[in-house]
């Protein structure tokens, strides 16, 4: 865990000028705040749901290939479990933020959900494509199938699926151009508008975990998985940077634009990916 946290720090340092330990301090600071208010039980439980979701996925995800310890609890379920378990946290968060009663929260969530529905479409197509390709849904087995050299990676054996999924990853990370959910200028911060202090601390911790997980998931699915910690860190780091780079270059989409965008090119790529393996 601690190693992962380090990575988050390093990764967030990608932004200009922040000390690499800054996110840590932020989190400590957030926990150290003295005041805190709550809008009700669900508001309180929202972040817990969120983190349960995040940590849960983490636990269900095999990190290191063929490692006894770092396969975590992946015996409990396969790729489908992970894809659906993301929603657990999102739902809890949405509910908690909803109870905050702030209109921006609701607007943010409604936008987030709208966008999310279409983000998942190319992702699904890609996953289906991979499942056809490797004839399995188990992540460990998918990783196992990619061993034996860089050309065995899904990236090369199934490029369309990879590209489709990588595009959907952009949306999943919520950087520009798909950051209307948080839209710092118009609906400040979106869903977590009312969250603060340790609630926000928990959420930030979780955001970090989620980014790692997404990256690790993609690494496992498309980039051959990781045989050791070093490989894990390097690969997921690069996957994360993909979205950061794109985010720097492109301006923000409106919600209906992003919805329609995901239903165009990424969808097409996903369809091609499936047709190839049909």
């Amino acid at each position: 865990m601690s190693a992962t946290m380090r990575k988050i720090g390093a990764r967030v340092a990608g932004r200009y000028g922040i000390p690499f330990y800054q996110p840590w301090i932020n989190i400590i600071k957030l926990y150290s705040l003295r005041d805190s208010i709550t809008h009700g039980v669900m508001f309180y439980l929202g972040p817990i749901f969120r983190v349960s979701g995040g940590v849960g996925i983490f636990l269900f995800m095999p990190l290191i290939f063929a490692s006894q310890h770092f396969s975590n609890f992946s015996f409990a379920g396969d790729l489908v479990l992970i894809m659906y378990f993301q929603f657990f946290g999102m739902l809890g968060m949405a509910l908690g933020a909803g109870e905050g009663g702030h209109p921006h929260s609701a607007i943010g969530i409604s936008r987030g959900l709208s966008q999310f529905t279409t983000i998942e479409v190319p992702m699904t197509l890609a996953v289906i494509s991979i499942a056809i390709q490797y004839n399995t849904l188990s992540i460990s087995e998918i990783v196992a199938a990619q061993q034996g050299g860089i050309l065995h990676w899904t990236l090369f054996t199934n490029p369309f699926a990879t590209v489709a999924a990588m595009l959907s990853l952009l949306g999943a990370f919520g950087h520009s151009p798909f950051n209307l959910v948080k839209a710092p200028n118009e609906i400040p911060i979106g869903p977590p508008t009312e969250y603060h202090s340790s609630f926000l601390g928990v959420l930030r911790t979780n955001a970090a975990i989620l980014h790692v997980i997404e990256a690790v998931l993609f690494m496992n699915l498309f980039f051959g998985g990781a045989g050791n910690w070093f490989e894990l860190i390097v690969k997921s780091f690069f996957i994360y940077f993909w979205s950061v780079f794109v985010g720097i270059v492109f301006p923000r989409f409106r919600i209906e634009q992003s919805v329609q965008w995901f239903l165009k090119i990424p969808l097409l790529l996903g369809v091609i990916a499936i047709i190839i393996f049909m």
Partner: protein
Amino acid sequence: MISPIHIITIALGTAFALGFTGKLSQKISAFIMLAAVGMLTFISAQWVYAFYSGGQETIQIFTAGFKPPYSVNLQMGYQEAVISLMINFVGLLSGIYLFKTLVKQGKNAIAVYIILLMGLNVIVLTQDMFNLFVFLEVQSIATAGLIVLHKKKHAVSSGFKYMVATGIIAGLLLLGIIFAYYFTGSLNIQDFINANMTASKGGAIAVFLILGAILLELKPFPANGWALDVYQSAKPGLSAIISSASGTAVLFVLYKIAAIGSFDSYDLLANLGIITFVGSNLLGIKQKNAQRLLGYSSVGQIGLLVMIIGFGPVLGDKFQFIAFTIVVAHFLAKAGLFWLAGIVKKDNIKKWSALRKKPFLLVLFGTFVFTLIGFPPFPSFFGKWELIMVLAAKSNMIWVAAILLGSFFEGIYLFKWLGYVIKGEVSEKKTIKVPVHKIIPVAIVGILTYVVGFFSSTFVEGGDIINYLPLFFIAALFFVDFLPAFVKNIIAIAGMAYYGYTFLPELYEKDLLRFIFGTIFIGGGILTLIAGFYAKGKRQGFYPAALIMFAGLGGIIQAENMLQFFFAWELMTLGSYILIIRGKRSMPHGYSYMLFSVAGAYLMLIGFAMTNAQAGISLDALSMITSHANLIYLMLAIGFMTKTATVGLHIWLPGAHAEAESDVSPMVSAILLKAGVFGLIILFIAMGAESAGTNPILYILGWLGAITALVGNLAASFQEDAKKLLAYSSIGQLGYILFAFAIMTHLGWLTGITYSINHFLFKAVLFLAIGAVVLRVKTHKMYEMGGLIKRMPLAFIAVLIGIITLSGVPPLSGFAGKWLFYNAVILKGWYFQGAIVFFAGIIAFLYCFRLIYAVFLGQLKDEHRNVKEISIWFIIPIYILIIGIMIFSARPDLILQPIGDAIAGYFPSETLNWNDTTASTTLGYWSGYRVMIIIGIMFTILFAWLALFNRKSKKVKQFNIVYSGERPERPETTHVAHNMYAGYNKALGLLVAPFITQFWNYMSETVKGTAGFVRRVYTGNGQTYALHIIMYLVIIYLIVF
């Protein structure tokens, strides 16, 4: 044994005697008349009894002691006795009903009345053609006299038109008789039949004239404008006689003399009959006047009967049964309806809502309407069933289609009428007066429909094993309707529990699949009935309707043959229709529900009939179809899909579910829809696993399911009405289920069953919870609610669990469905459909969130600050269901493993393996139990962690939010719930544009337009009508010769 001749003597004697009783008061004369009619009834009744108990031979009576042709002879057989009994009976009842009118109109009217009855009797009994003619005339004149005696505006003119028309007809008939006499030298009908007149051309014309005249007497479409005017303007009591008694009598005449023609003339009759049936019912659609509407219906029904007579030779030994049931149904229902028209005294069918103040009459009205359309348990249901079975067996599919089309048209206006009656606005304050002497005939007729229905079922093949027990129970419950709802609810639950007990344990051993659905139907029924305890007052009519529906559902499970199945299916439709239209604004939705259901049921009926023709009546026969298999399957599938509300056939659902009462919505949504699913399962079992890869129907259904899921869910996201949202969500969920079953693999079926169970559980929870909330906050609009979590935490938890299950988020059981689904789809190779369904599944998050947020989170409204937690009677079933969800979530293997084994028989290879609690396929694996435990532990740890850091959180109130330095002004303006997914709507709203609604609207407009156009032939002018009659004959003549 009193000789039938005395029917004439008594009637004539009384009529003459009345002339001499000048000093007696009118009342006494009327009593004498009634006594006489009673006597007539008794005579026919004793003959019927004699025939029924057997041993009685058909007797011939020769009036003057000579043999025919030198005398008039009467024949009294079983048929004659029954028809005569019917006539006299309705005459008696009508006499009672018209008592006061007759008294007022005086002795002459009374005498004419009895003469009319006598005429009808003689028509039935006589075997002499000329005698027949004479008494037809007697009957016509008597009728005309009675019509004219009625002092209604148009009575005189319509009486005149009637005279003109019958005059022409009489002329034609007389002409025919003369011709016939010339050819045969006899006037006896039997001689006519034996003479084989059609051999020569002149004889054929004689036959043509005779048959044509009798047919015209039966008011065939479109040469029947005069008759409709009569129906409209005559006294309702009289219309009853014209429609029931006269119609029946003349029909019988037609039946008697049909044999004088050749085989061709039967065909002709059948054709003319069906044209009348379809045409007349089509015209009825645009009709607003109640009596005229009944007229159309009468004409239509008689047309159907003419057709049946025309098919007499084809139907063979089934003919009597079919004709009898349909005649009786028409006879009883039409008499009852005309009498009711006299009680209500409203011309416009929209004003009939006055009837609502008298629940008893309302029930009778419903009974008659359902009898006419042919719903179980009424006699016409069995008649139509047999008719269609036989026709299908003789491959007369076009006829079947025409009959059902006509029936459907009839359904359109009758249900519209029923809707007006049940849901129309009651404008006037004064209630309608119901004199006892008017109600008794109606009641007797109403009860008779049930009795006859019950007995007719025993004559149908496979009908003898229909389970009538629940229906008796319901009837008993109906008679204790005056009890408070609480008591009735206990009785109903007890009844349901017992009903379940009678067949469910047995099914558990025998057929697990049925057991599951049976449990959903009956168990779910009991749970939703518990919610019914909230109701105060009497809740009249609710329990019989609900129980009829559940009896139907139970019947579907128990059904072993297609008749049982169809019987139960229609019963369920009937019950659910009544339940649905109990809602406040549910009339149009109930109406469209009924039309779709009826149309779907008719398609099923065709399918069943074709199957029956090939492989017998058992349900298993579906798998043994040899020809037209795909057509049959398609029709059955469409029939079932009207209930599962697959896209295209779904437009009835949202309104019907949303506007129903709070505890009815879960019944119709969580439970009733499963009936369609069950039907599909039966269908798919019949199609067999081997068809999985090859049958295009499955492929189409799969796509349909996927599109339904997408459209349903998308539309649900854009709803403002909480219950409508849930209703659209049901459409979407049923789309999943259809899709899953259409996959036709072991996994696919498991997915479908998991979805079915889940949908039952969570949709019941959601509808109950939201319904209960609606009861408290008195609005459906989500944006008018908000923040209710503070007032109704238990409801919130219920909805939360409901939506987690719905959306398929682990650890709850919804995920079981999703996981199975993925595996099934990928193994099957339906990737794109699967992706669409998956997309739909994510869209479900949109409406799930909207539902829980807009209702329970956000800002509490002013007016809801003191609102109470939902009623305990809703909480109990909700939490029982939630326990069910929890168990199913934690140990899906407990249920899925045995089901998997149970359905393994249908599929060659079993693809889901259970290892302890872990399910695995060749693709992946998943353990609900472990996921649950891991998540539980994690949740606890994190809760402790946050609690540690956040012990002293200050609980704040709802406006303590950051608001850009400002503060919120009103909860309404701070609650973001209206048009929540505006951006999404902009992007994808196109997909849910109401094309389908528009299509159906267009269809209905077209039908109405056609009806309105064709209706113009009825100008209301006597000369035109006369012309019609002549033209009609001429055209037929041209066709025939």
